[in-house]
């Protein structure tokens, strides 16, 4: 018997988002929000590294400029239905906003997933510009109506809850 006619809200994207929501929820419940954020940061940094390499290869540049970083961050979010846009761009910062999360309603109550945005933005900006400090001012995951993310491009001391990112250095330990 075919069940094709049933109106069930299920396809691959929906399934994967549900899976991600439940995984992150389980992680938050088992190890706590802070620890879960740490684990998701590992994933976010890896995703950020992969996307940064893709965009640099596509744009055929060794490093992205600040303008390119801003465009890349908006583009990658739009490609995954994040609907991010630039609110403000200055020499020392890029401010982004969004009214929809790539995870949709599945992000509610999962603030650990914000570490994906923080790490992807931070990695792309830090790797190309040397330094980035990502502050998530508002988040749908925390119950705000939209997301508001500021990427600072110059170091500052003690302003808000932000995470800092740097260009990576691979240490050479072979001779020690």
């Amino acid at each position, binding site marked *: 018997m075919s069940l094709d006619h049933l109106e069930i809200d299920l396809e691959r994207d929906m399934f994967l988002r549900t899976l991600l929501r439940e995984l992150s929820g389980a992680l938050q419940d088992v190890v706590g929000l802070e620890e879960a954020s740490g684990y998701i940061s590992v994933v976010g940094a890896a995703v950020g590294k992969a996307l940064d390499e893709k965009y640099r290869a596509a744009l055929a540049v060794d490093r992205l400029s600040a303008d390119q970083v801003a465009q890349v961050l908006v583009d990658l979010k739009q490609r995954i239905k994040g609907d991010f846009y630039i609110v403000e761009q200055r020499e020392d910062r890029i401010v982004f906003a969004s009214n929809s999360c790539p995870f949709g309603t599945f992000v509610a109550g999962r603030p650990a997933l914000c570490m994906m945005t923080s790490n992807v933005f931070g990695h792309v900006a830090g790797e190309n510009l040397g330094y980035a400090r990502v502050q998530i001012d508002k988040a749908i995951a925390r119950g705000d109506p939209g997301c508001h993310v500021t990427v600072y491009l110059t170091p500052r001391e003690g302003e808000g809850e932000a995470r800092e990112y740097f260009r990576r*250095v691979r240490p050479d330990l072979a001779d020690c």
Partner: protein
Amino acid sequence: MDPIAKFIRDPVVIFAGDGRIIEMNRAARARFGDSGDSWRQLFADLDGLQNLLERASGSADPVLGALRLAGAPAAEAEAKVEALALRREGAIDYAIKLRDAAGDQFAALTAQVRELNGEISVRRRVQAELEESLAHNKVLYRELQHRTKNHLQMILALVSSAGRESDDPGRKQFVKMLQSKLAALFDAQRLMYAEDAGNGLRVDQMLSALAETVQTLAGVRIAIEVRAEPIVAPNDLAFPLALIANELLTNAVKYADGPAAAVSLSFVRLGDEAVLTVRDNGPGFTPSASGPSSSGLGLVRGLCRQIGGQFTVQSDDGAVAVVSFPLAEATHALS
């Protein structure tokens, strides 16, 4: 070393960018010794360590990872670690902390919980198997009831046929007596199957069905009044009771007298006992009587012994037969 690191109970090691050990806290020295000054003293995987430190260099926060410890058996899981890049005057040093290196501080409790979880799993599996087995047995039991009912019906039909084919009055009477007993068993069995009553059946329904059967088999129009409380009796009580009631009703119908012949049956609960009374308006009963009819009463007495009951017969404007017996725990009144 940063004084804060001295407070940390987990081992913390600080490396220079070239892999030299700069400092270790007390826990790290206790864990790894302090004889060497290379990362090789601590970790077995150069590539994994470099990847971890590279990731740490990209963040101001500690990053999580896992590393194989030097000298650890191949089967042992990698150690959980956190790495932090320390930026000092243009150079980067690295701090690595082993997480949960002190081991499980509640090992006994953890072992106990694990053991209990294992036991729960086993019990759940056994319970699932038992439930499945029970469901299977229920199906078999019902199938058995069904077959028993059909076989009884078949035997009843064969006996009836044998009675019809004979011209011998004695044989006809014997067949009728046999038919009556089988019909009583059939009624009880039919009810049990109809109600899917694995544990017992409604005595009031059984007695009403029996009264109808006796009436039909008697071939005479005698009113049988049945007043029975709705009591559920276990099968091992219900079947003897059916045979007892059948004997008493058959006798009562046989001896009820005249155009106003009437038989009544009552079944009531009195405390822990049940009382079955069958009354007719015939000539009354002589206990010393013997003959074919007394064999039925012998059967009643035998069945009373089986259920722990007492049987009395007296005359009071007809015969009054009373059987009282204790109600088993499995017997209960319907609320």
